[in-house]
């Protein structure tokens, strides 16, 4: 990462559901066009961290900073309008709408729909074949492609991906992460949360391991193999 102001920076971030603290002082930064992977076992607080960044959950402490500005308390719709896009676990598409209709939902940005749809089909040609198909009847990989295409239609600057690989075959996951790398090369900053690390470490510029609400290790992906084993298989203190 360069010395430039990071697109996203978390400083001592804390978050809780009522009295149960789930995120306990997380420090993390994502630079411009950088892919950062946030890894860790189930219940570590990864998805909650994304919810706080997207404004869906108010932090109980610390700071969320976007492009250098503290944005604690910002409304999710304002953050989305600014260019923060969360693709949640479970894809967040409308399963009873067609691919075409799902993409049409993303036209709130004021971008012409034809242009938006053409860009989505250029990036994900398989969606063009499924244009009139009800999204809920597509394969998991195609649904995830649609979720990405719809998120990118808003031309985001910061993309938050929650468990992109969930329930997908390894080959599909690899293909999706190739797209993620392509998106990052266009200058989009990406924070990706994953429980299963192997594929995401291949595309991430940096990674951090989160266990029980805290970052236990961070650095280049190749330096984290040992810490990952500890986080998943024991040695959790």
């Amino acid at each position: 990462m360069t010395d430039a102001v990071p697109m996203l920076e978390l400083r001592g971030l804390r978050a809780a559901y009522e009295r149960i603290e789930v995120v306990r002082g997380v420090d993390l930064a994502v630079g411009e066009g950088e892919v950062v992977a946030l890894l860790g076992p189930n219940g570590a607080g990864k998805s909650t961290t994304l919810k706080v960044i997207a404004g869906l959950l108010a932090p109980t402490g610390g700071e969320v900073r976007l492009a250098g500005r503290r944005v604690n308390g910002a409304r999710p719709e304002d953050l989305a309008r600014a260019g923060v896009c969360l693709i949640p676990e479970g894809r967040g598409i409308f399963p009873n709408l067609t691919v075409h209709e799902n993409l049409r939902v993303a036209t709130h940005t004021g971008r012409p729909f034809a242009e938006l749809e053409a860009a989505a089909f250029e990036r994900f040609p398989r969606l063009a074949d499924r244009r009139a198909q009800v999204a809920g009847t597509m394969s998991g990989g195609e649904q995830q492609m649609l979720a990405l295409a719809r998120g990118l239609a808003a031309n985001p600057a910061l993309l938050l991906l929650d468990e992109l690989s969930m329930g997908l075959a390894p080959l599909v996951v690899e293909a999706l992460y190739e797209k993620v790398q392509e998106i990052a090369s266009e200058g989009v900053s990406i924070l990706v949360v994953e429980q299963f690390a192997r594929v995401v470490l291949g595309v991430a510029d940096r990674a951090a391991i989160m266990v029980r609400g805290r970052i236990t290790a961070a650095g280049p992906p190749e330096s984290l193999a040992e810490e990952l084993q500890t986080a998943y298989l024991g040695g959790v203190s």
Partner: protein
Amino acid sequence: MGADDVSDEGNRVERFKSEVAGMKLRDPALKRDRALLVFGAVLLGVGVAVAIYGYALSHQATDDQRQQLDGITIGLVGVAVTVVGGALFLRYSIAQFLRFWLARLTYEQGAQTDRIVDAIGSRSTQDPPAG
């Protein structure tokens, strides 16, 4: 990456920075949510009391039509306040319930992870050394 891509990238980042700089912020809404929940519950109670009072007032005034009309008006105001209070209470109690539900899921997942970690740990200590 072509010239257009570079320009798109620059635009995207600049747009993001300017949108973030112009964003209006508010304080975290937790305290406000709780206040509105309590306010809704109070309105609900007050509305019911006012409606009952209006009903009683209109019934007592058997000969005075003006008092009856006043009683009916007060009763209707009470019903309206009850509806508003009920809506506020429902809105903010459901939000609280959903947060609790998420907290429970998170807690259970955490506990399950702990059990798995413990099980793997105890198994590895019980395994006899190879060879």
